[in-house]
């Protein structure tokens, strides 16, 4: 049996949770048994996860789940996995999932793969799973040989698929410790675009922008596409843009469907965090900029001319 922890934020399932359920369903088909989903705390309409392949959904109710404490959450998921005799536990490779995966590996005496990109294949009692390594510069295949396995699924790898119908939600009771971490404040960027790690479309700009006052054309392009904005490291370091927008080896690693690199030279540390994007468009006035080697489409030109034209073209396309 495969147990999937479906992460919710303010009671709503995120896209990454739906991806994890689809992944759990596909994994169950490979390893045998059902795909069972666990939800924690107050969530809206957990039964809908049946559509993505859950044969059953369990919920553990506890007021403590309103704030994230990895010890409390790992105890809940770990105890549920033991009680339900899960063979594989699936999490999302999100900030929450990353804090939980290692804890569950210890609790369940399990081998783990963090940030899986593929549905496992089976070789006897061993599961084979691939993940990105060397900050996206390579892929490794891992063999997990323990009795129980824990896997976190990288985002934007397995699209959610509707394969079933809603199911019933059952309550589950497990022993839980008292939380020790107190959340004082949550600060989320306003706006309705997806956070960077989950974004499918990203418009990113670098030092070629000359200064923060010029970012309006980047925001306009992003808005026309419904894309999330990002930036290179020096741009965040000098405070032109907020730190959470910094992508690359020492920033956020992303793999959207479409990545626009505008006025970014394409240093190896930058590429490390973005080169898994499905399609890369580079806009740079220097035809020798290294980024063109990693690009699918390139525009050699002055970004201050090209970007507004592109925004107009996108708007025209969207309106058509």
């Amino acid at each position, binding site marked *: 049996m495969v147990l999937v922890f479906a992460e919710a934020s303010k009671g709503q399932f995120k896209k990454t949770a739906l991806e994890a359920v689809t992944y759990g369903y596909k994994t169950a088909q490979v390893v045998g048994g059902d795909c069972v989903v666990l939800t924690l705390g107050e969530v809206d309409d957990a039964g809908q996860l049946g559509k993505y392949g859950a044969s059953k959904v369990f919920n553990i109710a506890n007021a403590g789940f309103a704030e994230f404490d990895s010890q409390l959450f790992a105890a809940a998921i770990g105890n549920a996995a033991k009680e339900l005799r899960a063979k594989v536990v699936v999490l999302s490779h999100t900030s929450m999932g990353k804090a939980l995966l290692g804890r569950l590996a210890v609790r369940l005496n399990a081998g783990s793969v963090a940030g899986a990109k593929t549905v496992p294949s089976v070789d006897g009692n061993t599961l084979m799973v691939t993940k990105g390594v060397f900050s996206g510069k390579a892929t490794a295949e891992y063999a997990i040989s323990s009795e129980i396995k824990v896997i976190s699924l990288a985002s934007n790898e397995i699209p959610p698929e509707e394969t079933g119908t809603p199911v019933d939600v059952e309550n589950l009771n497990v022993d839980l410790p008292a939380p020790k971490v107190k959340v004082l404040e949550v600060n989320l960027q306003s706006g309705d675009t997806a956070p960077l790690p989950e974004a499918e479309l990203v418009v990113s700009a670098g030092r070629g922008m000359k200064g923060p006052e010029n970012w309006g054309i980047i925001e306009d392009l992003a808005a026309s596409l419904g894309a999330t904005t990002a930036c290179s490291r020096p741009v965040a370091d000098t405070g032109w843009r907020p730190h959470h927008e910094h992508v690359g*080896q020492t920033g956020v690693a992303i793999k959207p469907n479409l990545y626009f690199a505008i006025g970014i030279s394409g240093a190896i540390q930058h590429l490390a965090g973005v080169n898994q994007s499905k399609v890369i468009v580079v806009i740079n006035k220097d035809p020798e900029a290294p980024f063109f080697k990693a690009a699918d*489409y390139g525009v050699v030109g002055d970004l201050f001319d090209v970007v507004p034209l592109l925004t107009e073209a996108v708007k025209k396309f969207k309106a058509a």
Partner: protein
Amino acid sequence: MKLLVCVSKTPDTTAKISFTDDGSEFNAAGVTYIMNPYDEWYALVRAVELMEKGGGTVTVINVGDASNDQTIRKGLAIGATDAVRVNANPKSALYIAKQIAEHAKDGNYDIIFCGKESIDYNGSEVGAMVAEFLDLPFISFGNKFEIENNTATIEREIEGGFEKCQVATPFVVSSAKGMAAQRIPNMMGIMKAKKKPFVVVEPVEFPDYSTPVSYSLPAKKTGVKLVDPENMDELVRLLNEEAKVI
């Protein structure tokens, strides 16, 4: 306070990544190694800052073979008071965490720092594992860290923003950009490092449940298609019809 910082050695960020012909192993020829940036720039520096302000000790720990000694000495040069190397050639995060937890369990550490992730295996796993082995709270991806009277206030990165949380010692924290500013070791630090306590201990037995068995490099891009800068309608058309991404 007694602080422990977990440091790993990783290929330099500009290293060309390649593998042996059969894809079974990382090709280390010609690769220079560094201390994992998250461990060095943020975890270690913040720990040293706390010690400079409030006293105590900063121990660096690494699980690795003797080729890691240079990296560990750099940690001492930056300001750690002493170092431990668990003499092993680790193949899995769980193995590493077990060794660190073995060292820490009787060490009475107030805080165990590690990096957000290692830039080679990118697991973000070791910190959470150490915390679970020791049954301690774990705060991941801290980018601001303050402590007063054994209660730390930590800002941690979450999707699309951050969360400010509070936790009492002892606990484990993983460090992300923002927690401290990189320090370059000076001559004095390097000289002092030579005289600081540095012990090498043997590992405890522990199985490897999950190990990489083969590696591959991404398929090369077939070449960039250039679009006339005056004709952005064409770019939009290509993205829609050919690449199918908008």
